[in-house]
Every structure is written in C-alpha cells, then in structure tokens.
C-alpha cells in the first residue's frame, strides 16, 4: 500500500534528480540535440504532452513530458519524411522513462513501465502542482523547450546512495547483443 508519509531523504532526492536530468540530456543527445536544464519554472502552454505510468515494489508514479511540435519533429531522426508526431511523442516518453528505469536498476530499484498516452492541442495546461514528490525539469534546446515531470510515490522506504554496487550486466542504450 502506498504510504503518503514516506519521502526520500536529501541524498536520495539528489541522486534521483541526477538520474532524471542525465536521462533527459542523454535522450536528447542521442537525437543530436543539446539540452540544457534551466531553473526557470514551467509557465509555457505547450502543444504536445505524453504521460507514462510506472510501478514497482518500491515506488510508482508517472512521467510527463511536454514540448512543442518543432522539438518533437527535431527529435525524430531517421524517420524518412512524414512523422506521426503524436505517436512519436508517446515513444519519446517511453524511451525517456526507459532510460530512467535502467539508471534506477543500477541502484537496485526496479520499475515496470505502462503504455504511454500522448496528447496534442493548442495550449495544453496541466494540473501538476509543486510538491516534494513531483520533480520537474525544464530544458532549453535550439528547437524550443521541454519540461519533464516525474511524479512519484514511495511504496516502501527507499534510499539511493552513491557508490552502490551496480549490475554491470545492465544493457545500455544503443547496445546490440546477439546470442
């Protein structure tokens, strides 16, 4: 049962923030886009958003990414022409949360991903509020900004620590192995 009173300590929160931040930057870099985090609070109304849930024995929640069509199109490399921007936005959320999942796995934390839902509109607004359990990250790129929210709840007490003996067998993004 989810316990509202459980929270991450300061070191764990810092590690979680680093995981999310580095996953976002790495995802964008893999698409050839430099993304730099800005401390500016999210106020923009965006054209696209995707929501993807996750659940595990220690934490559960959802990730939301919002951005405009221009950045969405720029992230879709090797598509050969017409891009289904809404479908791709769902896949962006999937791949981004997948990176976070693999980084959490390196800390011994396992989560399962749900299927993403993508939304498009003229000026999307959200009800995501400021909370210690909602980590928000806004990045600037040459194609526009994007914001990522990581809304989580602890199912059981969780500590993330540097120096954790990670599993070196975790497969990395872009890796291909034949058996």
């Amino acid at each position, binding site marked *: 049962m989810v316990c509202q009173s459980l929270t991450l300590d300061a070191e764990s929160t810092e590690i979680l923030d680093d995981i999310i931040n580095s996953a976002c930057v790495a995802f964008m870099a*893999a*698409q050839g886009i430099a993304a730099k985090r800005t401390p500016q609070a999210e106020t923009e109304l965006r054209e696209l958003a995707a929501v993807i849930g996750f659940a595990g024995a220690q934490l559960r929640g959802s990730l939301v990414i919002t951005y405009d069509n221009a950045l969405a199109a720029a992230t*879709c490399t*090797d*598509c*050969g022409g017409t*891009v*289904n921007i809404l*479908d*791709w936005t*769902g*896949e962006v959320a*999937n*791949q981004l*949360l*997948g*990176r976070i*999942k*693999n980084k959490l*796995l390196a800390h011994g934390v*396992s989560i399962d*991903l749900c*299927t993403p839902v993508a939304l498009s509109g003229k000026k999307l607004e959200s009800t995501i509020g400021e909370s210690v359990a909602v980590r928000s990250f806004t990045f600037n790129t040459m194609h526009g900004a994007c914001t990522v929210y990581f809304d989580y709840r602890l199912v059981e007490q969780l500590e993330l620590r540097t120096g954790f003996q990670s*599993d070196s*067998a*975790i*497969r*990395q*993004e*872009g*890796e*291909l*192995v*034949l*058996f």
Partner: protein
Amino acid sequence: MKRVLVVDDSATVRQQVGLALSQAGFDVVEAANGADGADIIESDPSLATVICDVNMPTMNGIEMLKKVKANGQHANLPIVMLTTEGSPKLVEQAKASGAKGWIVKPFKAELLVAAVRKLAGS
C-alpha cells in the same frame, strides 16, 4: 529479397526500423502488437527475421516469442528484441525463450542492419 517482420506498438519506431531495413534491401512487414505479430509469423513462412518490441499492449514481445517458439516450425526463425529494457534478468529470459538477440532503444541503424544480415543469412 529477404523479408523481415517488425513488431512494435509505435508506428514511428516501425517506420524507423522499416526505413533502415528497406534501404538495406530487405522487404519489411509490420505488426503493432505481439498477437498480430504471431499471426503474421504463422501465416508467412517466408520471413527471414523478426524484430520485436517487448512492452506492447494486447500481447507483449516475450509472450509472442514464447508462443511462436512453442511451434516447432519456427525453431529456426531468428527473433531479436528491440526495447528500452536493459535488465539482465529480462535479457536472459528472452534468450532462454529462444530470442536470438537484444537491442536497447534507440537503435543504431548500421548495427541493426548488420545483425539482420547475419541472422537472415544475407
């Protein structure tokens, strides 16, 4: 022309994989979930390789893999998983279920093409 089945619930990923493979000279067919993928495999004996996502609605990739490999006629059909998952446990599960490879998204086109060429016997 060797035929490859691409199974992924994202139309964009199917488009990306399909483009890489068709530019390399392969014929590409698509499915949006494991159930449709399994149906295509059962009905098309000309398939040379399958590239399959793991997390999909209706039937996930591991379930499709197990269902397909339960039919001895597909024992030699190479199936490679293409997924965001990096868990060694899941990789071993797929290997034990008969998968021939594992790719973590985003894929590199040149690696994907080389792998398919090797598996399809091109």
